[in-house]
């Protein structure tokens, strides 16, 4: 089983090469840092006071995560998951996949593992982008002071891990839908609607029951405008549990499908 999974995973990883999902991950993860760099270079005269602040890296980290947590991370989960599954439908390849000597569990888990690693890569690239957003203007603009502290003083591992967990329910829900929809517009459309519903639900007390809202809740929890969300202390556990439940449902639907491919 393990060897079978490793080889299937390797094959799945190869399929994602040069795919639209891969391009999207790189573009989406670096978009916010690229905008920050561009804006700071354009307004370079006002950079010195920003870089002189003692909490420079914390401020940069927080502002970068705003668009990431609310917009890019949920959309990356929606698009990457749907597009990676779509590779099989587009290539008319499900029948080939199911005729290979591997179990349905291995097929299901190998593809899911690829999606999770792509999401991890998305966060990793974003982190690298934020780092560059901090140091590139400092290196290019004369007279900008060296920021206090370093990027690596930030709670990188903890914050990335928690945001990753918060995005997992979206991945599981999208995976479930994408495996059943030959038309990629179905999971993407449904995902977009679910994300819009999540944004609409944030102001209410019901947002916690909407898995597409978890990354946004996480970001807003310690902000003044998200005070009403601070009570959701078990958010990450709930996200993990929702991911497990949706993945289990997706798996059962996948293996019990009467016609494969």
């Amino acid at each position, binding site marked *: 089983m393990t060897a079978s999974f490793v080889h299937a995973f390797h094959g799945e990883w190869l399929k994602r090469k040069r795919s639209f999902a891969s391009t999207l991950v790189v573009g989406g993860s670096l978009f916010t840092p690229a905008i920050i760099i561009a804006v700071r270079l354009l307004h370079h005269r006002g950079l010195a006071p920003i870089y002189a602040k003692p909490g420079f890296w914390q401020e940069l980290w927080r502002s970068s995560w705003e668009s990431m947590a609310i917009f890019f991370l949920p959309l990356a989960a929606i698009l990457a998951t749907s597009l990676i599954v779509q590779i099989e439908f587009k290539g008319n390849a499900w*029948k080939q996949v199911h*005729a290979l000597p591997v179990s349905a569990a291995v097929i299901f888990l190998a593809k899911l593992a690829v999606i999770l690693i792509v999401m991890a890569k998305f966060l990793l690239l974003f982190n690298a982008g934020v780092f560059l957003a901090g140091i590139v203007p400092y290196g290019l603009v004369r007279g900008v002071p060296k920021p206090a502290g370093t990027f690596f003083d930030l709670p990188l591992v903890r914050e990335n891990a928690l945001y990753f967990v918060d995005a997992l329910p979206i991945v599981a829900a999208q995976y479930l839908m994408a495996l059943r929809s030959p038309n990629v517009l179905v999971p993407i459309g449904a995902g977009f609607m679910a994300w819009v519903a999540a944004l609409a639900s944030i102001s209410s007390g019901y947002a916690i029951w909407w898995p597409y809202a978890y990354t946004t809740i996480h970001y807003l929890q310690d902000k003044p405008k998200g005070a009403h969300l601070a009570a959701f202390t078990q958010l990450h556990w709930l996200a993990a549990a929702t991911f497990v439940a949706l993945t289990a449902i997706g798996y059962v639907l996948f293996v019990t499908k009467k016609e494969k491919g």
Partner: protein
Amino acid sequence: MTAHCLETHGLTHRFGDHKVLSGIDMQVPAGSIYGFLGPNGAGKTTTLRLILGLLATQEGEIRIFGRPLAHDRIAILRNVGSMIESPSLYDHLTAAENLRVLQLVHRCPESRIREVLDLVGLADTGRKRARQFSLGMKQRLAIAGALLHRPSLVILDEPTNGLDPHGIIEIRNLLVELNRRDGCTILVSSHLLSEIERVATHVGILGRGQLLFQGTIEELRRHRQEVLSIRVTTSDNGEAMRAIATDGVSAQLVDGEIVLSALTRERIAAINRKLNAQHLDVYEIRSVRNDLETIFLNLVRE
């Protein structure tokens, strides 16, 4: 290995209330090239999908290499290569990358990728992606994928669909070579008898969800004699039919010709003498031996 590489017993399948396969007892001898024939919609692809486990078996049993598919599916599939309907390819990958995906799962030597690409004539495609391939190239790449792990049984569903005559000949030669050189059993479906009769050692003919004929290609050819008919053309076919009928021979008028069922040479000569005696001019008497195509059509139309 058992004498039959693949066997189905009472294979029956329904889509809703519609029965598409009814009690299929298929026997594919080991080492044969088994032509699986039938018109479009006869149930060929459904049968092949059942054999690969792509459809859940509702009724009946499938045994491959003597083992039940229901219990040993993964072990069986290690020795089966397949191509069902249109090629399954990842358009954004090259030919070698497409095969690499399969090679990783089959865990066969990486050198096999080059070998099968050579075999199907795609070794020079380099960095060209599959989306830039012609239909024939895609078809050949999919066949290469089916052969990659040196399977004992290769299942190909209409492998020459969309190919030009040259491509059809290439695929045909490839199948014969594989069968002779590696001794692998090949189950190849088609709706064209002309395509199958050139390569197959055995034939199964499917029509309306039933296996109408199964046997060697020679057995199918022997059907020629059984369906022999005689055609007669005279100066007055109506009068001639009445004369023939008095001898107890059933005759039909088809397209301006009198069609008689199979007769001995002596009876044909006697009918000729009788027509002459009645002053009817006999323009033509010929025996019609049905070719394989006609036998096939008769079987599936009956």
